[in-house]
């Protein structure tokens, strides 16, 4: 509130531009000082991760759940008929708007160390006889450098939003719409390179430490004990219950997100896996 007050006051001062810069600087240094301080204090120690995961559920998964509910209500005729045509969409259409951001567990023992093996579909790779384009990669990258050089040089200070007030057609950071004749890719429809399964490995550190100490007590040297005690094992696979995924397409994840909202047992298991079976709680 103090910062906002200061900002309001400064905006009426004579040196408006200077004041704005100074205010930005205050925010900037405050933000970064807090960020640095947090890192110094906490390091890799997990804090408020359960709250974060709950907010993931409440913000992202809940929206999907609501859309699913909507969809179901229209399909079962519970909603008003006049909106039926407008709202009713196929499951595929509903899922097409999404892509899935996959965030992995780490080796650092913030929780237990883990990593993942992904499996993907190779069926048809030998039949995939597309022709390579004539342009060499060398030429492509030389050309790309030229494009980027030109883009920076022209109107260096030109800020697309601030100056025109509306977005310029020259904004090269906005994509063109996907041409309608292009089919959906491996994320949406099962085909060559679609992910099919994953295996999540983890190292149970408390078990490893216990076994390591036991082996030392039994007279093994440190190297032998470590060789024997340290191992990764399968934590779970994408096909394991209680929420076995038949595939790893966007629609499978969207369906899972919806289930996680409505089923407390599934959510509990999901959290356990999110924290790499470390037993972490806020």
């Amino acid at each position, binding site marked *: 509130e103090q910062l906002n007050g200061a900002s309001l006051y400064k905006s009426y001062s004579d040196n408006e531009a200077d004041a704005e810069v100074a205010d930005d600087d205050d925010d900037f240094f405050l933000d970064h000082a807090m960020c640095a301080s947090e890192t110094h204090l906490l390091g890799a120690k997990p804090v408020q*991760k359960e709250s974060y995961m709950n907010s993931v559920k409440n913000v992202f998964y809940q929206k999907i759940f609501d859309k699913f509910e909507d969809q179901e209500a229209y399909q079962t005729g519970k909603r008003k008929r006049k909106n039926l045509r407008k709202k009713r969409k196929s499951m595929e259409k509903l899922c097409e708007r999404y892509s899935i951001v996959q*965030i992995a567990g780490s080796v650092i023992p913030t929780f237990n160390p883990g990593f993942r093996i992904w499996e993907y*579909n190779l069926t048809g790779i030998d039949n995939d006889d597309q022709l390579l384009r004539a342009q060499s990669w060398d030429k492509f990258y030389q050309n790309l450098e030229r494009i980027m050089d030109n883009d920076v040089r022209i109107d260096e200070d030109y800020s697309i939003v601030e100056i025109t007030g509306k977005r310029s057609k020259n*904004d090269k*950071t906005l994509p063109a719409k996907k041409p309608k004749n292009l089919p959906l890719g491996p994320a949406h429809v099962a085909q060559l390179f679609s992910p099919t399964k994953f295996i999540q490995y983890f190292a149970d550190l408390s078990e490893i430490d216990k076994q390591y100490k036991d082996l030392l007590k039994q007279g093994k040297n440190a190297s032998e004990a470590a060789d024997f005690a340290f191992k990764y094992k399968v934590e779970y696979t994408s096909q394991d219950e209680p929420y076995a995924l038949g595939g790893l397409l966007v629609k499978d994840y969207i369906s899972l*997100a919806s289930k996680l909202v409505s089923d407390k047992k599934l959510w509990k298991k999901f959290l356990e896996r999110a924290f790499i079976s470390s037993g972490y709680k806020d």
Partner: protein
Amino acid sequence: DSQTGKEKKLHGRFLHITDIHPDSHYREGSSIDKQCHRDKPEDKKDRAPRFGRACAGCDGSVDLMDYTLKWIKENVRDEIDFVIWTGDNVRHDNDRQIPRTEFEILDMNEVLAQKMHSLFCDHESNNPRDFDAMVVPSLGNNDVFPHNLFAMGPTLQTREYYRIWNTFVPQEQQRIFDRSASFVTEVIPGKLAVISINTLFLFKSNPLVDNCDSKKQPGYQLLVWLGNILQEMRERGIKVWLSGHVPAIPKNYADSCYDKFTLWTYEYRDIIIGSLYGHMNMDHFIPADGKKSWKIINER
């Protein structure tokens, strides 16, 4: 491989590994309360085990890194086609008695890059760029100095990373890598590629990132690069995985960067298979809504 004429058996599997955070100051038997760096532990619970303790707050011991790579060598290496490795290859800067230096960051990155190379390279080839499983690294916010801060290149840091990753980054991309520390690897030539994205150019906590609207912003430049790469991949019929350290979620990216990045993943849904990230240490997924990002961009 049409360039080398070599045939390789595909397994239909790949490895994603992230946030190894090895700490050369880690001492087994030291106090967890002192970042596992020094002093006698107060009690059993405070004692730093050889391979670390979950949730305790210390970085990874060098033994944890070495034994993890050893386990992968013995159990996984020969059954995968490629490796996506999404950064943070050095300890956190959380010990005021031993501040992290730029030298330490680059040095540990070099050590780990050499270990990854030696683990996955083709030992029968004289060419250091020949791999049994291609490795595609990306830059973490702890891999740069100062913490989180990374400027558009060419800079000393982009050059250092080209040197460190020299066997991983295709030669023809050296100059373009020098700008953005991002690159593309065809893990199955002509068919499948992994794009390594320097997500620090989109990251809110990078003090040099304000938005992705101004041409001076590193995120703007990165998205121009990404757009051209995706279009070329589409024209060549190559499918792609996106990879990077900081996940593309609203909490992490500057607003316009998040929406624009999401738009690219949406409009190239004919070729993008998915996107893999690290940074947050938790195993989970977040759906990104492309239509919503269009709406926000248009309203803004």
